[in-house]
């Protein structure tokens, strides 16, 4: 079938844009590929490629410092996600629903952690913790992480609260549910997608955070990113590559599973 000039042009643009997108993805995925490749490097440090081995995957589990820091990071990420999402959800609803003095100020304040470089906030928190004599540790890291997670949670959830929410809450109270019942049975389920993406965002931000953790960690136990940063001077050992490779695998598997579940759910829904 002969193509018109216009169709030819569109096809050409299409091919060019696909090539462009592929190149951008390539640049983003090259580091990941290199990182994975070097987890199989047969060398004490990754000086250069020195042959294939899987020994690091075995040795990984005897590196207690590495494993401990991973757990520490996971626990901190989970806790700061929970705290941020709870405060963020309640706050987003409160800020959306109620009018009060100083609401504008609070709304603007929420943008500070988003727009001020993280190092500044970290430094500010460090100074104030020192001033009041709080010893650094999990508590201080949690506060730090929550301080930048909460605004993101509030903004994300606020975006998901539609105008309908007020009416739904009224309908619930009208049907005899008090405020708490209404919150649990109606408000929360309707904004749940927003809450989930806030949780997801908070977890990601917290789990990969270096700046805040590095500043506020008691040196007793460091998070994984801080450990990796401190290894940088002496050299990052291939077992860290092995660990991150496993993490990539877990993430990708989770994503694929999620995709499959969502699709089957959709199919099921379609059948009814």
């Amino acid at each position: 079938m002969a193509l018109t000039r216009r169709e030819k042009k569109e096809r050409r643009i299409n091919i060019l844009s696909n090539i462009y997108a592929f190149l951008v993805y390539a640049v983003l995925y090259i580091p990941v590929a290199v990182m994975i490749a070097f987890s199989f490097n047969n060398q004490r440090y990754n000086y250069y490629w020195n042959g294939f081995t899987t020994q690091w995957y075995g040795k990984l589990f005897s590196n207690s410092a590495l494993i401990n820091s991973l757990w520490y990071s996971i626990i901190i990420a989970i806790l700061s996600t929970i705290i941020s999402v709870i405060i963020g959800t309640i706050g987003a609803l409160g800020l959306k629903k109620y009018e009060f003095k100083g609401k504008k100020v609070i709304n603007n304040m929420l943008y500070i952690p988003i727009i001020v470089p993280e190092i500044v906030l970290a430094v500010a928190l460090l100074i104030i913790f020192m001033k009041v004599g709080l010893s650094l540790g999990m508590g201080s890291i949690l506060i730090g992480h929550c301080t930048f997670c909460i605004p993101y949670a509030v903004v994300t959830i606020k975006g998901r609260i539609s105008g309908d929410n007020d009416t739904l809450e009224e309908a619930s109270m009208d049907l005899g549910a008090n405020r708490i019942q209404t919150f649990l049975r109606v408000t929360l389920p309707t904004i749940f997608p927003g809450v989930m993406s806030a949780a997801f965002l908070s977890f990601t931000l917290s789990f990969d955070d270096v700046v805040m953790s590095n500043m506020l960690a008691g040196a007793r136990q460091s998070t994984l990113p801080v450990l990796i940063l401190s290894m940088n001077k002496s050299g990052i050992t291939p077992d860290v590559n092995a660990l991150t490779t496993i993490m990539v695998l877990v993430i990708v598997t989770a994503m694929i599973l999620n995709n499959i579940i969502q699709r089957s759910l959709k199919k099921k829904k379609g059948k009814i």
Partner: protein
Amino acid sequence: MKKLLALLLAGAMTLSVAACGGNEAPAEDANAEASTELNIYMWQQYISDELIANFEAENNCKVNLSYMSDNADAINKLTAGGGEEYDLIMTCDAYMESLIAGGYVEEINLDNVPNSANINDAYWVSKGYCVPYLMNYIYVVYDSATCPIEITSYNDLLDPALKGQISTIDGARNLFPMALVALGYDPNSTNADELAEAYDWLVKFNENVAAYGNAEQNLTNGTVSVAVTYDGNASWAMAEKDTIKIAPFTDDAIQLGMDLYVIPKGAKHVDLAEKFLDYICTPEVMAKNLGEFPYSCPNDAAVEAASETYKNDPARQFDYKENVFFQEDVGEALTIYNDYYQKLKVGE
């Protein structure tokens, strides 16, 4: 106002701290019975995992290792009541005097550390307050295959032929002594003019530096041809690449750093800390550790018990071993060091 602020913060703190459970506070009743937890603050990649695991198994305890990135970190911990968090902190000889004077470290009962007798007294400063662990020469090594010039002194490092060819250790108190020695001054000088000159020397040196840190990697993979580094790192690099040699210095003294453990004031698990110190002083244990971390060691019995590979390590075969200096406490002059160091790092 401050009190109110503290109160509010404390309130919020309890919230978040309560959420993370018992992870935060170590057992308070530690002194009554045998401790089951030991918290150590030290350099990274500096002790064998196996050694730690064996110690844990033998004493039925948990060892928590955390790492510093600068000598200053350890001093910060010690002066800020490190005993709250740690039972053993690694520091270096230079700071011992003022740490003891400031009452930041516990006296160690060496009767409980019988194996410490293996340590050569020549390397033991402030005996009774610390136990030496490893030591290291900070010297110059080069790749004979690629290095364009012969290096016999610090001043040779300023040769323009070495532009972008040097990987060096970092830190004010490691860099400045080099410059001071090169200029013929006291490596622990507190004289502002001398330090100013040393700064100028380092600015020139900086032009030849490719990277601060990562000496071992950079030397091995050919990024640089010269490195200022520790003997242990040199040992690893030499094992990878046999063209790496120690620079034959003629006159300039090199730094010998001593890393030692102290027990911070108010440490909670002193019993276990002493057991640990005794354990690492055991010749066989340390000998094994040296196999993994081939640094110089003040424990003569351990060196004796170490493998032939360790004993014949080319990284320690050089003839100016006696021409060394130690880092000393420079007191208030530290500010001058830091300011110049800062300027050095900022200036291009």
